[in-house]
C-alpha cells in the first residue's frame, strides 16, 4: 500500500525537478487554504442564517400561506424531470436502494426540526424517482411525454398564478424560467434551423439574420428590450414581468437552439434525404420522421448544455426587477441585521448553483456517451 503510494507519487508528484518545485509549493499552500476554509466553516461561520431565510431563498416573496402552491409546482417539475431522465437512463434496483437511502437521510437530518417540510421534500424525491421508474419501465409512456410536458407547464402556471405572477421568486423562479425557456425555445429553434436551410433564399436570409443578430447581442439587453417593448406593443394585456422575462429569454435562446439543431441537421447524411425522396415521401414527412430524429440525437447533448446556460444566466432577470435565487440572497444581505454574513450566504448560493450545474453537466456527459453508443 505504502509502496504503491510512493510509486504513484514519484510518477505524479515528483517526476521532474519542475514538478517537485510545483508540488512542494502548491500542496502546502492548498492544504493551508483548505484548513482555513474548514476552520471558518466549522467555527467562525454562523450558518443559522440559511435555515432562517430558506423560504426567501427558495420562493422569494411568495406568500408563506400559499407555499403549498410552490410545493405542488416543485412536485410537477420533479415528475417531469424524472420522466425526462427515465427516457435515457434505465432504472435499476440499485438506484431504488440509493434513493431510499437519500429519503431516509433527508427525513433523519431535517425531520426533527420541521417535519412537514422534510416530508414534503421526501415526497418530492419519491415523485421524481417514480417518474423516472415509470417511464423507464413502461416505454409506451414515452410517446405521451411531450404533450405531458406542455400540460405540466400549463398546470404549473395555473397553480402558481393566483397569488400573482409578480410574486414568483427565489430558486423556484430560476428553475421555472429555465424550464419554460428550454421547452418553448425548442420548437422555435427547430423551425429557425429548418428555415435557415430552406429552399427559399428569402427564408434563409431572414432566419440567418435573426440568428446572427440574437447571437451577437447580450442577453441582458434582449430581456430589457422585450420588457420595455411589451407594454408599448400590447398595453391591453398587461403581461407580468415574469412572462415578459420568459419571452425575452425564449427569443434569445431560440437562436442558440437553432444553431445546435442545425449542427445536428448537418450531421445527417444527404443520402438519407435522397433515399426517402426516392421512396416518394413528401418533404414534410422526410424532415419530420427521417431527418429530425437523427439530427436531434446529435443535438441533444449540446441542448442539455444549453439548459445549463439558461440556468446560469437566469440571474440576469434582476434587470427587470425580479427576485431570483441570487437576488434573494442579496436581499437577505441588504438587511443590516445580517450585513456581516456575506461569506455564509455567498457560500450557500455558490454551492447550490454548483450542485445544480454539475448535475446538468453530468446528465449531458452521460447522454453523450449513451447516444454515441448507438452510432455505427
Amino acid at each position: 500500500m505504502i509502496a504503491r503510494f510512493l510509486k504513484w507519487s514519484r510518477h505524479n508528484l515528483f517526476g521532474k525537478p519542475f514538478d517537485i518545485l510545483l508540488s512542494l509549493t502548491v500542496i502546502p499552500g492548498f492544504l493551508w487554504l483548505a484548513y482555513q476554509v474548514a476552520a471558518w466553516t466549522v467555527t467562525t461561520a454562523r450558518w443559522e442564517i440559511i435555515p432562517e431565510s430558506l423560504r426567501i431563498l427558495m420562493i422569494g416573496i411568495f406568500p408563506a400561506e400559499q407555499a403549498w402552491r410552490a410545493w405542488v409546482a416543485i412536485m410537477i417539475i420533479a415528475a417531469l424531470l424524472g420522466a425526462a431522465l427515465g427516457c435515457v437512463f434505465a432504472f435499476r434496483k440499485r438506484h431504488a436502494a440509493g434513493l431510499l437511502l437519500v429519503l431516509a437521510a433527508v427525513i433523519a437530518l431535517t425531520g426533527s426540526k420541521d417535519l412537514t417540510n422534510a416530508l414534503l421534500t421526501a415526497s418530492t424525491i419519491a415523485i421524481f424517482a417514480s417518474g423516472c421508474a415509470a417511464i423507464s419501465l413502461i416505454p409506451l409512456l414515452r410517446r405521451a411525454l411531450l404533450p405531458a410536458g406542455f400540460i405540466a407547464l400549463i398546470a404549473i402556471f395555473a397553480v402558481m398564478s393566483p397569488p400573482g405572477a409578480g410574486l414568483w421568486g427565489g430558486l423556484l423562479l430560476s428553475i421555472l424560467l429555465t424550464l419554460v425557456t428550454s421547452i418553448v425555445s425548442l420548437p422555435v429553434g427547430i423551425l429557425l434551423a429548418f428555415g435557415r436551410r430552406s429552399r427559399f433564399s428569402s427564408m434563409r436570409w431572414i432566419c440567418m439574420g435573426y440568428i446572427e443578430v440574437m447571437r451577437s447581442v447580450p442577453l441582458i439587453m434582449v430581456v430589457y428590450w422585450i420588457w420595455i417593448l411589451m407594454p408599448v406593443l400590447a398595453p391591453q394585456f398587461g403581461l407580468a414581468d415574469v412572462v415578459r422575462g420568459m419571452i425575452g429569454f425564449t427569443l434569445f435562446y431560440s437562436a442558440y437552439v437553432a444553431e445546435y439543431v442545425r449542427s445536428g441537421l448537418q450531421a445527417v447524411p444527404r443520402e438519407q434525404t435522397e433515399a426517402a425522396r426516392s421512396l416518394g415521401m413528401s418533404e414534410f414527412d422526410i424532415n419530420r420522421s427521417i431527418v429530425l430524429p437523427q439530427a436531434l440525437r446529435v443535438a441533444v447533448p449540446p441542448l442539455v448544455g444549453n439548459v445549463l446556460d439558461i440556468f446560469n444566466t437566469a440571474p440576469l432577470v434582476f434587470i427587470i426587477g425580479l427576485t431570483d435565487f441570487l437576488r434573494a440572497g442579496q436581499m437577505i444581505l441588504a438587511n443590516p441585521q445580517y450585513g456581516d454574513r456575506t461569506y455564509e450566504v455567498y457560500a450557500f448560493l455558490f454551492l447550490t448553483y454548483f450542485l445544480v450545474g454539475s448535475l446538468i453537466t453530468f446528465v449531458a456527459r452521460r447522454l453523450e456517451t449513451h447516444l454515441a453508443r448507438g452510432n455505427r
Partner: protein
Amino acid sequence: MNVHHAKAAEHAVDDDLLSARRRRNRIRYGATQFAVIAAAITLVVLFALAVKEGLARHGIRFSFSFLWDAAGFDLSEGKTFVFDGTFWLAFTEFTSERSIAQAFAAGIVNTTKVAVLAIVLSTMLGVLLGVSRLSTNWVARSLSFWCVEFVRNTPLLIQLVFWYFAVILHFPPIAAAAEFYGVVISQQGLFFPALVWKGEGSPVAIAMATACWVAILGLVFDKHRLVRRVCMGAIVVLPCLMLLTGIVELDFPVASKFRAKGGTGMSPEMAALLLAIVVNSASYIAEIVRGAIDALPKGQWEAAASLGLSRRDTVHDIILPQVFRVVLPSFGNQYISLTKNTALGIAVGYPELFNIYGTIANQTGHSLEGILIVMASYLILSWAISATVAWADRRLSKRGAM
C-alpha cells in the same frame, strides 16, 4: 403512323408536360419567395407602426435628435471623443455638458477597454489552465480541472457580484492600502506603475519610439522569419534602452488619504468586472484547449514517443502547434461572448455601454432609439472580433504551424 412517329409524339407531349411543370414550379417558387418577403416586410411595418402608436400614447416621438442634447449626467469614469474645432478628435474625460452621443461613445470606449484587456488576459490564463491539464503533475492537473469545473457550473453574475461585494470591497481602504511591487491594492481601486514619456522632443528619443512601433508592426505583418526575429529582438532591447537612459520612466503610484497619485489606476468596479470575466472566459478557453488536445489522434503522441522525443518536446513541438491551429475559431466565439458579457457591468455599476444606455433611457425616455444604437454597437463589435480572428486564422494556416 408507324411506331417511331408515335414515340416521337409521346416524347413531345412529355417535353411539353415537363416544361409546363418546370414553369409551374418556377412560378410557385417565385410566388413563395415573394410571399415570404412581403410577409416579413408587413410584419416589420406593422411592428414599427404599433411601436410608434404605443410611444405616441406615452407622448414620446421616435427620433434620434435627442443624441445632440446635453447629457446632464456624469459618469464615474470614462473618456469620450470631443471635436475640438480643428481637424482632430480629442480624447478627453466625459463631463455632464457633453452630448448624449458622446455618452454613448464613452460607453463604447469603456466596453472595448474591458473587452480587449479581458481577451488578452483570459487567453493567457485559459491556455495556461488548459495546458496544465496535460501536466505530469497531479496537483496541477486536478487543480485546473476543479477550477474549470467550478467556474463553468456557476453563473457569471454571482461570480461578478462575489468579486465585487465580497472581495474587492473588503480590500483595505486606500489610507491603509496594501502595496505589492509598486501596485497599490485598495477599496478605491487598483493602481499600477505606468510608463511616462520623458524624452520631450529630442530626436533620438522620438527615433527610438518610432523604431519600436516599426518593430511591432514588422513582427505582426512581415512574412520573413529572419525579419520577424530581428523585430522581436528590437522590441525587447529598445524599451530596455529607453528605460535605462531615462527617456521613458516608470511612474509609481503613491497612496494618499483619498486617492493614489501617479501611475495608472483602475476603478474597483472595473477591476471586479475584469476579474470575473477573465476567470470565467479563461475556464471556457481552457475547456476549448483541452477538447482540442483530446481530439488529436493518439497516434501523434505515440509517434512522438517512438521517435524518442521527451514529453516536454512532444507537447511543445507536436501537440500545441496543431492545437493552436484548430482552436482559433472557437476562441473567436469565446471572445464574442466575453464582449457580450461585459454588459453585466451594470450589476456593479461599471459604466459600460449597456449601463450608460440605461441611464440615458431613464433620463430621456428614448429607450427604443437607444436600443437600436446599443444593438448596432454590439453587432459591430462582434463582427470586428470575428473578422480579426478570421484574419489571424488565415495567417496562421497560411504559415503552416506556429
